[in-house]
């Protein structure tokens, strides 16, 4: 495994601008080497071009001393007003809670609901669940417990009433009426306590203070589950009445008491979640905020690792636009790649073609653990899952967080991902997927001496159409799956103004994502309603907390990918890729330019992406979903394996024979259409496509037809509508 890791900020940078790298070593201090390179091609192996990088001389190249940097994963809320919690004599802590991991596995531990407990000081107090999952109160050395474990995913009202003068605590755990039958009864105990809370400290909801190390707060005993309306009363007087239904899109926690003990969330717990009183009458948190008064905390949430910058540099003013990486290497482990993007100079010269790096998709896949966890992955892959030792890093360092394909330790889906942490799987090695596969396209552009700029989803989301203005053609990556409204609208506007779009992949423009303003560098996505989903969003939680947007498929929101690129996702399989066969429509004079010099009927029966150009994830033409009726399907794939199955959003009633051996609907359609704005769209409909471009020294039918399209799309002559 790598012995040195890191991340960059910002992700996309222009020549002449600074970039910071946060680097940390693993298993103790050690020397490491750093070098900045431009990535041209990934390590495709003996059947492809192989790894190609171009060194960029910089001030940070060379050997450095490295030290470990900590990650404090786990979300919580903190109220940094210690003076308010130091003189409590008779007080009550109470909340509605829905624990989701009882007990914690594999090692049972405490889970704090709220309090001031500081583990390093051995002082404070906490309302919590003990190791068995029973409600407990901790003050002094040993907690007092009801001895009755709570049930995971049931709502309870819990309270601890403390009278330090009398030396008593009363604990109450009361199961709420629910739709599911239960034999649970309320539990209440009163018992003696013999301790004072000690020095005042910050008030935590969902965790406890562990220590301060290296100048940073460390936390422990994170709560897994929902907390709703936590409050602290002194006698009858409120000290804090925290309202999680307020300021949902932010990290603010509002105190409704007269004391204004406002706090903030840390590590981006999930907000806009159903509360204890959600009755199903509303699905949108904005329309019934009183039913959405909870926050779902996880012990493995992570927003910003917060590492110290260790290497900083200014991108040379003559650096060409491209995909770059800080290559880190320490003795005893493989290299680690910290990928970043150099965009064209702001206001300066540009190429006429732009590669739109799918940074939203890369991030949604970042730190993908699913293949390493038990489950039926092999059934939909059609082969054994494969990882490498860099991927294994995730399982040995769980604090690195997960991808949106994974579930939290409590089984709930990961709907927040952040680039402000080391990411192990955005690199030119490992699994041939996303950026690694996209580099096959950049390598092909280089081989044909086609100039290009690299811009990113993040740039497009922020800047919109002006980022695209001036480009004759925009090429997507092989799998631009995750798209924000801003990105979608910018691309549609670009086409409306005569732009040309080459959609070089499959399963694109599929899920809606948002970029939370309160959490720069993070993406929110909710796997709502339908679609090919690694997990299913909780009922009632389909609306994004950060923007209020309805989550899920663009297809379910009137903007199927077909409306933009003429095709949409229909099937996937991962054991073997196939080929396309030309259609009669490919002889249409409108498509003649595509096949100039291409004699073959079978296209792309070769390639580094599992042996063919049509594979992995496939898109098909469908006017019912918005594919332009005048579009030409110039080639379609065939002969897919049993592993390729129709996706569930293509199936209303389950039926047999929905795999690639039986169903003609399992196919990739290669589509061309002229846009009314004067531009045009070319879509490959397959993720594997770009893996065929380099075959036979870049001289093959896929390469030839793609070059034909690119050259025509660079030609300013407008396309006439048929």
């Amino acid at each position: 495994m790598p012995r040195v890791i890191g991340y960059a900020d910002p992700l996309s940078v222009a020549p002449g601008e600074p970039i910071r790298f946060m680097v940390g070593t693993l298993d103790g201090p050690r020397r490491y080497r750093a070098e900045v390179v431009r990535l041209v091609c990934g390590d495709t192996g003996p059947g492809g071009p192989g790894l190609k990088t171009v060194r960029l001389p910089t001030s940070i190249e060379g050997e450095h001393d490295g030290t470990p940097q900590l990650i404090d994963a786990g979300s919580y809320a903190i109220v940094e007003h210690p003076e308010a919690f130091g003189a409590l004599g008779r007080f009550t802590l109470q909340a509605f809670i829905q624990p989701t991991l009882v007990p914690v596995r594999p090692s049972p531990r405490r889970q704090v609901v709220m309090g001031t407990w500081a583990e390093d000081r051995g002082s404070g107090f906490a309302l919590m669940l003990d190791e068995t999952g029973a409600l407990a109160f901790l003050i002094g050395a040993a907690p007092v417990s009801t001895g009755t474990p709570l049930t995971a995913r049931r709502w309870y009202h819990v309270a601890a009433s403390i009278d330090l003068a009398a030396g008593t605590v009363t604990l109450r755990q009361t199961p709420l009426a629910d739709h599911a039958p239960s034999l649970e009864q309320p539990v209440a105990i009163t018992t003696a306590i013999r301790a004072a809370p000690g020095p005042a400290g910050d008030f935590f909801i969902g965790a406890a203070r562990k220590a301060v190390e290296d100048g940073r707060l460390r936390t422990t005993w994170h709560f897994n589950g929902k907390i709703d309306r936590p409050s602290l009363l002194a006698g009858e007087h409120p000290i804090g009445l925290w309202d999680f239904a307020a300021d949902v899109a932010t990290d603010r926690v509002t105190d409704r008491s007269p004391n204004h003990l406002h706090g903030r969330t840390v590590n981006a717990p999930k907000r806009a979640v159903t509360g204890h009183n959600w009755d199903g009458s509303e699905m949108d948190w904005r329309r019934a905020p009183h039913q959405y008064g909870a926050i779902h905390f996880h012990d493995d949430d992570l927003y910003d690792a917060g590492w110290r910058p260790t290497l900083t540099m200014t991108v040379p003013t003559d650096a060409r636009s491209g995909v770059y990486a800080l290559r880190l290497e320490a003795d005893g482990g493989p290299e680690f790649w910290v990928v970043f993007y150099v965009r064209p100079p702001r206001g300066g010269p540009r190429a006429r073609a732009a590669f739109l790096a799918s940074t939203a998709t890369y991030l949604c896949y970042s730190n993908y653990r699913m293949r390493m966890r038990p489950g039926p992955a092999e059934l939909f892959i059609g082969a054994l899952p494969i990882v490498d030792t860099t991927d294994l890093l995730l399982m040995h360092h769980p604090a690195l967080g997960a991808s949106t394909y994974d579930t939290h330790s409590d089984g709930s889906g990961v709907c927040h991902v952040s680039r402000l942490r080391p990411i192990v799987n955005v690199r030119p090695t490992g699994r041939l997927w996303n950026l690694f596969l996209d580099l096959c396209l950049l390598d092909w552009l280089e081989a044909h001496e086609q100039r290009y700029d690299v811009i990113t989803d993040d740039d497009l989301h922020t800047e919109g159409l002006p980022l695209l203005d001036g480009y004759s053609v925009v090429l997507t990556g092989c799998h631009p799956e995750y798209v924000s409204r801003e990105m979608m609208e910018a691309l549609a506007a670009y086409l409306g103004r005569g732009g040309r779009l080459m959609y070089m992949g499959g399963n694109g423009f599929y899920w809606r994502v948002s970029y939370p303003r309160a959490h720069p560098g993070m993406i929110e996505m909710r796997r709502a309603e339908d679609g090919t989903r690694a997990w299913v969003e909780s009922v009632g939680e389909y609306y994004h907390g950060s923007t209020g947007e309805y989550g899920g498929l663009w297809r379910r929101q009137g903007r199927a990918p077909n409306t933009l690129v003429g095709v949409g996702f229909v099937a996937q399989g991962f054991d073997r890729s196939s080929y396309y066969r030309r259609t009669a429509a490919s002889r249409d004079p409108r498509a003649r330019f595509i096949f100039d010099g291409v004699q073959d009927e079978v296209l792309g029966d070769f390639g580094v992406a599992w042996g063919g150009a049509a594979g992995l994830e496939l898109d098909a033409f469908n006017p019912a979903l918005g594919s332009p009726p005048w579009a030409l399907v110039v080639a379609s794939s065939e002969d897919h394996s049993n592993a390729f199955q129709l996706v569930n959003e293509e199936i209303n009633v389950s039926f047999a024979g929905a795999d690639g051996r039986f169903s003609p609907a399992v196919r990739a359609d290669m589509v061309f259409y002229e846009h009314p704005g004067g531009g045009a769209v070319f879509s490959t409909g397959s993720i594997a496509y770009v893996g065929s471009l380099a075959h036979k020294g870049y001289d093959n039918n896929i390469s030839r037809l793609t070059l034909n399209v690119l050259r025509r799309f660079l030609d300013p002559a407008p396309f006439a509508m048929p």
Partner: protein
Amino acid sequence: MFAIDPRRTDLALEFKRRPFGPHSPELQAVLNVLRGSLHCQNLLLVCTRPHAEWMLAEKQPDGRPPRLRPDLTFTSLEAAEWHAFRVRWEAVTGQALPALDRE
């Protein structure tokens, strides 16, 4: 429920010759059983030398790292698939596969 007929070693041979599809419907049925059984869902490959060597590993519950099997390394993905097939066939049918195809 469909059960694998351990006498159908012809299907095992079909898999050995072409581990990555398409498969005949009968072989696919066998694979559905072998890959779908709960006790057969724990295998993965860890690439130890890019494009050259893979080590079998067993997935673990509760987020724990996979258990590596240094005694089971392969120089081709086909060989790794065949090993997994044989092990699972025996686990599910109770009968070891005989030598096939002059192996």
